[in-house]
């Protein structure tokens, strides 16, 4: 007798009880005997040579452990894509907050004063802080021309299409940096002893990224470095690459002192020093026919990568591939580049380049609609991708997605047409102007192109002596539901109870490398491998004769218990193999960029108060196709959470930079939405399934970050008839556009497109 279906049901969150009782253990909750506390001395200037370091008076320096780059046993770099980022500055600094020196002491209260008492004398060098400055090459700060990476994506005969266009629509769009703002700041504990080597415990997304970085920094073999993930209080990409840096620092102090060392950032340090979403600039030039069909596009997509390469090439790649959105482009030329500036490196943040390029595209679609004289809904309907058509990389859409239907349903759910008409009438005499806006978009699940093949992720499943089953993966839980959903998949695949499955704490000594927990890949890719590993366990038990083909959960447990008692171990591994139809050419950027796409149409309703110039989101409808929904409550939580972050991206969260340094690194002056700022967000799913994902699931985590910002700014334009092309859009920008530099009455839209 088979257990009831588990996939598709909102089972209790696996680690939920610990989280609602305060029992869950995060890195700062762990204290080891004899532990010291570490702190980081950082650059106060954006660029320059270090002339001299002095340790000031009033501090008993003999009590402190002091580490410089000279103490690094291996290579002084944080290994990632290209090893250009030092772990500790060696004679030169390239951004504010760059780590120079490390201190540790048993009394953590003594550290702030000690950090302030280290004075560093510099020979400053001229620095650059914007994409434009970097492009001008007035200073070369990285490589031969300040360029980390470029891509060219070409499809069709772009130039010929522009010759035959009825309209050419051009505009530029920009997005700002955004802080991930996980509520748990970054932190690590490291210990070192000659017998076991190096161990770190921390708040992190990718145990094997940290593992790789520590091996290179310490010149240690794999089995002498152990990385353990503690409960992690939010990440959103912000704990993808930088934890390698903090782990390295704690480990250097631990090795030098012979004691465990804890480094916990406070909010100011976390905000100032760690990664943020890449600021972006996108230029669109689009050839359109008189009936509103896109004929060709030229898209120039540029990211500010900060001072070191880190993950910028990969963020750039995803942003460029998503730049054409959910539309059919007969021809297109996308030039993408990531440039260097003297800011702390920008990095991974939910959406990973796509929110930037899709903001530009979905604003541009409204612009095209105005130029052609169509409604925002109609311009999208006429250009949607259909099954059998190809994306900008030439990937044939072979999922049965029906975007016009998705659009119609979203418009109906939001009452779009009636509201649009009502607002237009009521706005004439109102001081609070209302508007409604649409965004339609897609998000590719999993690593791009051949990425999953290179990763070759491995998943393990083992039976425990009591006959229960344990999942072995390096995929981490940081709120999104990894533990719960992977256990659901294993239970479903084995036909056993959810309660009879557990998941190992991610520990590189215990679990195989199932890849990083990024790119909306865990449920789809790792989940599918859990399913395959489960089949292996089942097969071993049936072939051994201990389990019949048809069994109850109790019979399975008894059989697994008996097998382990007899053979000592029952374990099954599954490794990713790329399906044959996924073909990708890294050189030409042609082929299947993603095994599956998630699709969405979002509708935002806003009210703009012309007394305060503030925008509030009054209603939000999010309709998406994400394959099979494996856990409705968690899936809904992912969508709403992503939308909330994207509302912050659009309307609230502005990083104030000065000389490459964040000036508002506190929660009092970097404003994220509170419960009083957000509407109740309405979430709806369509479930088409997906042959490449566990039980038909696709990626879900990043999708909701992509669409809200353009939908909201489109709604603001609907309310005010003023086009805003930069986010975040704060009240002062609206004030400036409406009052300072414009006629008193809001002007009619000025279409920058021109008729040929």
């Amino acid at each position, binding site marked *: 007798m088979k257990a009831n279906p588990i996939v598709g049901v*909102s089972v*209790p*969150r696996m*680690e*939920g*009880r*610990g*989280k*609602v*009782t*305060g*029992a*869950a*253990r*995060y890195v*700062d*909750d762990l204290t080891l005997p004899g532990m010291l506390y570490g702190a980081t001395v950082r650059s106060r200037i954006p660029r320059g040579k270090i002339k001299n370091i002095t340790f000031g008076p*009033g*501090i*008993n320096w003999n*009590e402190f452990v002091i580490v410089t780059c000279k103490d690094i046993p291996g290579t002084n770099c944080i290994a990632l894509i290209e090893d250009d980022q030092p772990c500790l500055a060696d004679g030169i600094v390239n951004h504010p907050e760059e780590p120079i020196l490390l201190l540790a002491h048993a*009394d953590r*209260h*003594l550290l702030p004063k000690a950090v302030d008492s280290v004075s560093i004398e510099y020979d400053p060098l001229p620095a650059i802080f914007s994409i434009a400055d970097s492009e001008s090459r007035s200073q070369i700060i990285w490589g031969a021309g300040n360029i980390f990476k470029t891509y060219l994506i070409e499809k069709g005969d772009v130039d010929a299409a522009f010759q035959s266009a009825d309209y050419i629509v051009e505009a530029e769009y920009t997005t700002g940096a955004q802080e*991930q*703002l*996980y*509520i*748990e*700041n970054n932190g690590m504990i490291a210990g070192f002893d000659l017998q076991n080597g190096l161990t770190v415990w921390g708040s992190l997304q990718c145990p094997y990224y940290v593992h790789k970085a520590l091996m290179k920094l310490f010149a240690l073999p794999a089995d002498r470095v152990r990385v353990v993930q503690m*409960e*992690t*209080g*939010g*990440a959103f990409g912000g704990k993808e690459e930088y934890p390698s840096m903090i782990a390295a620092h704690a480990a250097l102090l631990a090795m030098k002192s012979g004691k465990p060392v804890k480094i916990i950032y*406070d*909010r100011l340090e976390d905000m100032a020093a760690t990664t943020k979403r890449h600021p972006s600039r996108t230029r669109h030039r689009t050839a359109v026919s008189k009936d509103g069909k896109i004929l060709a596009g030229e898209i120039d997509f540029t990211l500010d990568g900060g001072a070191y390469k880190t993950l910028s090439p990969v963020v750039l790649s995803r942003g460029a591939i998503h730049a054409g959105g959910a539309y059919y482009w007969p021809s297109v030329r996308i030039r993408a580049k990531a440039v260097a500036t003297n800011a702390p490196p920008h990095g991974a943040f939910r959406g990973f380049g796509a929110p930037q390029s899709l903001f530009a595209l979905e604003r541009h679609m409204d612009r095209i609609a105005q130029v052609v004289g169509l409604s925002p809904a109609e311009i999208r309907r006429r250009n949607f991708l259909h099954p059998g058509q190809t994306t900008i990389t030439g990937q044939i859409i072979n999922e049965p997605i029906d975007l016009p239907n998705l659009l119609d349903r979203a418009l109906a759910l939001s009452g779009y047409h009636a509201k649009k008409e009502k607002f237009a009438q009521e706005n004439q005499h109102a001081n609070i102007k209302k508007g409604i806006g649409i965004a339609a978009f897609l998000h590719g699940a999993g690593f791009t192109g051949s990425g999953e093949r290179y990763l070759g992720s491995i998943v393990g499943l083992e039976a425990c002596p009591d006959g229960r089953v344990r999942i072995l993966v390096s995929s981490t839980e*940081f*709120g*999104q539901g990894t533990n719960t959903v992977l256990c659901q998949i294993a239970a479903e695949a084995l036909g056993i109870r959810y309660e009879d499955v557990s998941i190992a704490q991610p520990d590189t000594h215990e679990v195989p490398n199932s890849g990083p927990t990024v790119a909306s890949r865990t449920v789809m890719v790792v989940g599918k491998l859990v399913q395959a590993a489960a089949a292996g366990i089942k097969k071993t038990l049936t072939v051994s004769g201990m389990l019949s083909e048809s069994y109850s959960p109790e019979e399975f447990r008894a059989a697994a218990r008996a097998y382990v008692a007899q053979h000592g171990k029952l374990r099954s591994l599954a490794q990713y193999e790329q399906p044959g139809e996924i073909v990708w050419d890294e050189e030409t950027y042609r082929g299947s960029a993603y095994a599956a796409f998630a699709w969405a149409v979002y509708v935002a309703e806003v009210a703009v108060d012309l007394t305060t110039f503030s925008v509030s989101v009054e209603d939000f409808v999010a309709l998406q196709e994400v394959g099979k929904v494996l856990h409705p*409550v*968690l899936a*809904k*939580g992912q969508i*709403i*959470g992503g*939308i*909330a*972050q994207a509302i912050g991206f659009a309307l609230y969260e502005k990083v104030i930079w000065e000389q490459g340094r964040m000036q508002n690194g*506190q*929660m*009092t002056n970097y404003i*994220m*939405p*509170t*419960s*009083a700022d*957000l509407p*109740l*967000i309405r979430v709806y799913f369509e479930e088409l399934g997906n042959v490449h994902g566990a039980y038909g699931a696709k990626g879900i985590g990043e999708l909701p970050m992509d669409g809200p910002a353009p939908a909201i700014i489109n709604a603001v334009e609907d309310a005010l008839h003023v086009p805003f092309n930069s986010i975040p859009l704060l009240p002062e920008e609206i004030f400036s556009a409406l009052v300072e530099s414009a006629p008193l009455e809001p002007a009619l839209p000025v279409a920058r497109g021109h008729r040929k």
Partner: protein
Amino acid sequence: MTGSSSPRAKVEIPLTVNGKPETLLAYPMERLLDVLRHQLGLTGTKEGCGEGECGSCSVLIDGTLVNSCLIPVLQASRTTVITIEGLEYDGCLQSLQQAFLDCGGAQCGICTPGMILAAHHLLTKKPQPSLEEIREGLSGNLCRCTGYTQIIEAVAEAARRGATT
């Protein structure tokens, strides 16, 4: 301790924490947050910002919701403090905690202890709050994961189940 820190003398601070009388020896200006976490091992109270903005360190002092990162421990002398650990009785979850689990009110969990204490405080004052009152009542506690909707649903659900009875 080195001479350079020149701390004032520690003082005895009597108080009741989660129903248990304690006498702490602490510097008067130490943050209540640190004393709870380091001396009493009550690590369910979290630090998110250290400046009273995020609410992760929320505790109840004599029934009032406070940010424990802003409270010098001396101020808690002769008071009754309730932390997240004080809400779970005899291994049974309170209906508020259960509602957070059922409705998806906890994701990464770092804001959850403070959020639950804020919700508990709200429901004590107002057993049947409107949605608007819940939104206002929780607006001093930041959550980056949920977008709040499922937290608000959890609090409404707990009210329906009679959280404070």
